[in-house]
């Protein structure tokens, strides 16, 4: 039986045992796919034939494809708990499908609702007629932390404070949509919605093509033009930025996706600064005016001067700039007041007053405990309702849950609490271990101010739940009523005219790219060392006193000098520790983790192939963890190396802007440092001709220079030749001389370089130093040690490290950290 048939049978014959499988249907639940008579819902009509043919097995394969695509795109979500790491984004392959007839009233309702919210915002931050007339109880607003008095001044007024909103909905047993919550502060998810679409269209190409659904791209174009048009009027050619709380934030992927698809720079608070009452972006020693900020930082955190003084996520002075009209923040700083659930009971009347029309989309039934009548209901039904505070995202007490002390808490500050009926949800099939099972589903819709009206995205982001928790997201397909209907109902906008090239790189981004270069090189060099050592270990681990065994011991020492000593005699244990232990300084795992972090911080600068390459590395790591065979070490290290090398191909296609130059500089700095340290660990001590020859050959292999060497010296391995090739040869891309020459070129391309800046001076010293080297002298041993070589390498490492620091100071110096002063005690 095919998957959908089995699902239909399952939902129409609900199991009677209350503790049946997790997919047990509740009587009276609306099913998104199967109508009560067992037929498919209308949205499925066009693709019924294909959809019905899908088998469980195919769906499992598709689910695997989805996971792989998401991993390749590096799509993550970071749970809001403290110290959580990014988790893979979860997407169920089965889309939520709605017909044009189903969608149309919802779309009208959404547009009306967001228009109402905008009008509400204008009133609450302006004349406050709803409060003075008692239509909304004043304490609902005055007592909510989202009501920002710094934005409630005559100077801050605007007639369109709300440009972009999200609406969370559920569907009741009658198939009617009910709003659970409004998101206006800094709505997230539109990037995830687009990514979901991208993946699903690839894994279910036939269904996607036949369905005739609204494409999403025009919505993004509309969003882009809305943001550009939001700029203050006197600003031609406006600069728009996306302000992110950083790569550790919950929805960092979403933010970066939005920034890069819209072509706006992704910035953090430290990239921006206040001057002359306006906001500016630091771009290489100069400041560029910012006209529009799409903010993903909550308002309270966005201005240390007038809002939370402990926040470094925003721009000190932002409220002032907004009041002066020099910058437009989207949404306005005061928009968080709309997220107050205590507004819900009053929205319907507010709609009559502000828009003079009835509210179309009902909200979930809500009672505010600050109102005497509401309080009575809240207290009477406290255990059966969902209790929330008015400005916390979390549920204080779930429906049917007895929370000790809750009644007292509500009574102590009633205006802080609401109680809500549990939201009735429809169900939709999600792919699980045993085929399609019904799960509760919610819809997040997005609405944009476009021109003079509000336009909902035709589509959205759905979530399915398991055990009351979000289990996966779903793509949302809205089927066109006629095949040639306009996508998103808008005429294709002009091809995205660039408001401004997104070329502007802030110093933080350049710094992350520099480290991206360094970490990728560090991982690469150590992987090569491990591969060579592992090959030696295969042959000589049981013959420690052979020449090969002695050379192996030297390589193991080199590994220890780079990545710390591992407390084991077993070579494989050492390799595994260096490859896998996340906290081992200098180890491969640590370099890769740091590489990934740097990449995440500059996600909008990098091609999506980056994630593909890193995904391959991850899979190789996974295999290494899973299989303990010795050959798996070589196998996985080799594939990790291939993945890291692929990054070079990715960055080869980058624009030759300062970011690229610093990325390459990072690689070269690290390569020469790694080489110097490798020589320091292998070549300083003299161990006899045979062992030395073996070791030098290994060093040449690790340094990718063995072929050249063989050609040039006909297989005759002597340290002099090795040093000549690795230190001085200007044509060998792995040599120090080559690195120094290229570093000079990269530095010269930087806007901060003057020809005599400190990094340039230090580099000149390094080149002088190298020019004075006589390899014959370096190769001379006094007793057991080659002291000249040792000295040279020590000095080189020291100077190169100082050079790297100087590059940082000149080309991506972080501004001083803001401190808060003031709060003088008042006393008499």
């Amino acid at each position, binding site marked *: 039986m095919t998957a959908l048939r089995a699902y239909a049978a399952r939902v129409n014959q609900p199991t009677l045992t209350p503790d049946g499988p997790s997919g047990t249907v509740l009587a009276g639940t609306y099913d998104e796919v199967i109508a009560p008579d067992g037929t498919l819902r209308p949205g499925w009509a066009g693709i019924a034939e294909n959809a019905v043919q899908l088998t469980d097995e195919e769906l499992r394969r598709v689910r695997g494809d989805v996971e792989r695509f998401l991993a390749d795109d590096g799509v993550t979500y970071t749970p809001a708990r403290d110290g959580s790491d990014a988790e893979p984004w979860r997407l169920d392959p089965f889309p939520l499908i709605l017909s044009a007839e189903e969608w149309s009233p919802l779309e009208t309702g959404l547009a009306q609702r967001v228009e109402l919210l905008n009008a509400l915002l204008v009133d609450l931050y302006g004349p406050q007629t709803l*409060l*003075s007339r*008692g239509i909304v109880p*004043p*304490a609902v607003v*005055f*007592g909510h932390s989202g009501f920002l*008095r*710094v934005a*409630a*001044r*005559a*100077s801050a007024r605007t007639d369109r404070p709300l440009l972009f909103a999200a609406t969370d909905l559920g569907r009741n047993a009658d198939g009617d949509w009910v709003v659970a919550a409004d998101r206006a502060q800094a709505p997230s998810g539109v990037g995830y919605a687009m990514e979901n679409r991208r993946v699903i269209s690839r894994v279910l190409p036939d269904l996607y093509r036949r369905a005739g659904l609204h494409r999403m791209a025009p919505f993004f174009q509309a969003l882009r033009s809305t943001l550009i048009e939001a700029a203050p009027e006197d600003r031609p050619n406006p600069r728009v930025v996306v302000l992110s709380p950083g790569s550790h934030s919950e929805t960092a992927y979403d933010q970066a996706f939005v920034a890069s698809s819209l072509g706006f720079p992704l910035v953090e608070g430290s990239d921006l*600064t*206040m*001057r*002359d*009452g306006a906001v500016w972006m630091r771009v290489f020693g100069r400041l560029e005016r910012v006209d529009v900020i799409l903010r993903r930082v909550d308002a309270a955190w966005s201005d*240390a*001067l*007038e809002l939370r*003084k402990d926040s470094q996520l925003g721009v*000190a*002075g932002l409220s*002032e700039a907004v*009041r*002066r009209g020099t910058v437009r923040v989207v949404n306005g700083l005061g928009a968080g007041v709309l997220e107050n659930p205590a507004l819900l009971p009053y929205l319907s009347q507010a709609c009559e007053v502000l828009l003079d029309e009835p509210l179309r989309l009902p909200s979930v039934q809500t009672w505010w405990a600050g109102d005497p009548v509401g309080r009575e209901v809240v207290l009477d039904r406290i255990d059966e309702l969902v209790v929330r505070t008015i400005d916390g995202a979390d549920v204080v007490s779930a429906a049917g849950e007895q929370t000790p002390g809750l009644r007292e808490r509500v009574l*102590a*500050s009633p*205006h802080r609490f609401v109680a809500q009926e549990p939201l009735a949800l429809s169900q939709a099939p999600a792919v699980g271990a045993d085929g399609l099972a019904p799960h509760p589903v919610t819809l997040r819709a997005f609405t944009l101010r476009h021109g003079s009206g509000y336009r909902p995205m035709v589509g959205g982001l759905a979530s399915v739940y398991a055990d009351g928790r979000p289990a996966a997201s779903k793509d949302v397909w809205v089927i066109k009523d006629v095949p040639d209907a306009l996508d998103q109902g808008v005429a294709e906008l002009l091809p995205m005219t660039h408001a401004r090239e997104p070329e502007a790189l802030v110093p933080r981004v350049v710094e992350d790219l520099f480290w991206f270069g360094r970490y990728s090189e560090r991982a690469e060099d150590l992987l090569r060392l491990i591969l060579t050592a592992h090959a030696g270990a295969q042959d000589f681990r049981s013959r420690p006193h052979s020449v090969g065994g002695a050379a192996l011991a030297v390589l193991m020492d080199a590994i220890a000098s780079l990545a710390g000593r591992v407390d084991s005699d077993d070579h494989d244990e050492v390799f595994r520790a260096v490859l896998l232990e996340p906290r081992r300084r200098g180890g491969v795992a640590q370099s890769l983790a740091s590489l990934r972090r740097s990449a995440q911080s500059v996600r909008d600068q990098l091609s999506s192939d980056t994630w593909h390459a890193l995904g391959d590395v991850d899979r190789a790591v996974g295999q290494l963890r899973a299989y303990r065979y010795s050959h798996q070490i070589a196998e996985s290290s080799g594939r990790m190396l291939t993945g890291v090398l692929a990054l070079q191909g990715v960055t080869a296609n980058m624009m030759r802007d300062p970011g690229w130059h610093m990325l390459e500089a990072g690689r070269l700095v690290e390569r020469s440092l790694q080489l110097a340290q490798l020589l320091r660990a292998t070549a300083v001590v003299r161990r006899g001709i045979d062992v030395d020859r073996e070791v030098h050959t290994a060093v040449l292999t690790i340094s990718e220079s063995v072929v050249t060497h063989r050609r040039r010296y006909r297989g005759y391995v002597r340290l002099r030749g090795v040093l000549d090739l690795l230190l001085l040869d200007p044509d060998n891309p792995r040599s120090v001389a080559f690195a120094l020459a290229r570093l000079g070129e990269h530095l010269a391309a930087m806007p901060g370089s003057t020809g005599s800046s400190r990094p340039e001076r230090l580099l000149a010293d390094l080149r002088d130093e190298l020019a004075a080297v006589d390899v014959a002298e370096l190769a001379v041993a006094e007793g057991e040690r080659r002291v000249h070589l040792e000295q040279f390498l020590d000095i080189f490492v020291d100077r190169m490290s100082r050079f790297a620091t100087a590059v940082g100071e000149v080309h991506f110096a972080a*501004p*001083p*950290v*803001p*401190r*808060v*002063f*003031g*709060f*003088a*005690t*008042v*006393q*008499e």
Partner: protein
Amino acid sequence: MTQHYRVSHRTTYSYDDDVSDSLGIAYLVPRDLAWQKVVSQEISIDPEPGDRSSDVDYYGNTVTYFQVTEPHRVLSIHGLSEVEVFAPVYDEAALAQPWEQARPAERPDVPDAWQALDLTLPSPLVPLVPGAHEYAAASLTPGRPVGEALTDLMHRIHAEFTYDKTATTVTSTIDDVLGTRAGVCQDFAQLTLSCLRSHGLAARYVSGYLATTPPPGKERIVGADATHAWAAVWIPGESTGGGWLAIDPTNDQWANDRYVTVAWGRDYGDVPPVKGVIFTEAKKSTLRVEVDVAPV
């Protein structure tokens, strides 16, 4: 009687390293009020800010914004103003009504009651703690005339709490003040707010100055005055809407023509004389405040 004062309020920050960028907010311009007229006012900042502006905030206070971008180790903000203050006249009938009738939630008949509701709610520095509610209950006995009840609360705080600069810090809470029974004017003002708001009365935090009289036979010492804070309580009147009774628990008196009103808000956090953000590598900063309220 009309009093005429020249107020000088200088705040000086010194740092042990250069500050490259300094943004500030100052509440130093006295309000124009029925009982107070601002004759002149000026704020000078040194070094000269590259940018400054003045605005009227949500509560009608004048607020000054400034940014100094030239490197500096000393920043001085000097407010200088001349004001005339008149002795307040109170509506005796309004003060005689039961205190319960002064709760904005009970007075939909009064035009500005809805606005006063703002000041019945807890605010960041004034949580409504059970201790304050209990403490106030002894003064707010059922049916007691509001003027008398407020005066009694003011007397009790003055009598039962010790003025002690070492007892509290800027981070002390209402509960700390209740526990130690000591504090400074800011603590007493905010305690009063918590007491009154927890009984549904609307009360605001007032920041300003108090002209002091030198001890008999002594010269007035210039610069020895200080900023001051007290509380004002909403009292609905017959015809005029709500009026406000300003009570000073630190000095056990209603505000009179010796009180210069600068700004008001929910608590200290809404109207600090000066606050700011600096960008610097400096580790240490020292602060000096000199206030002088001179009769003219």
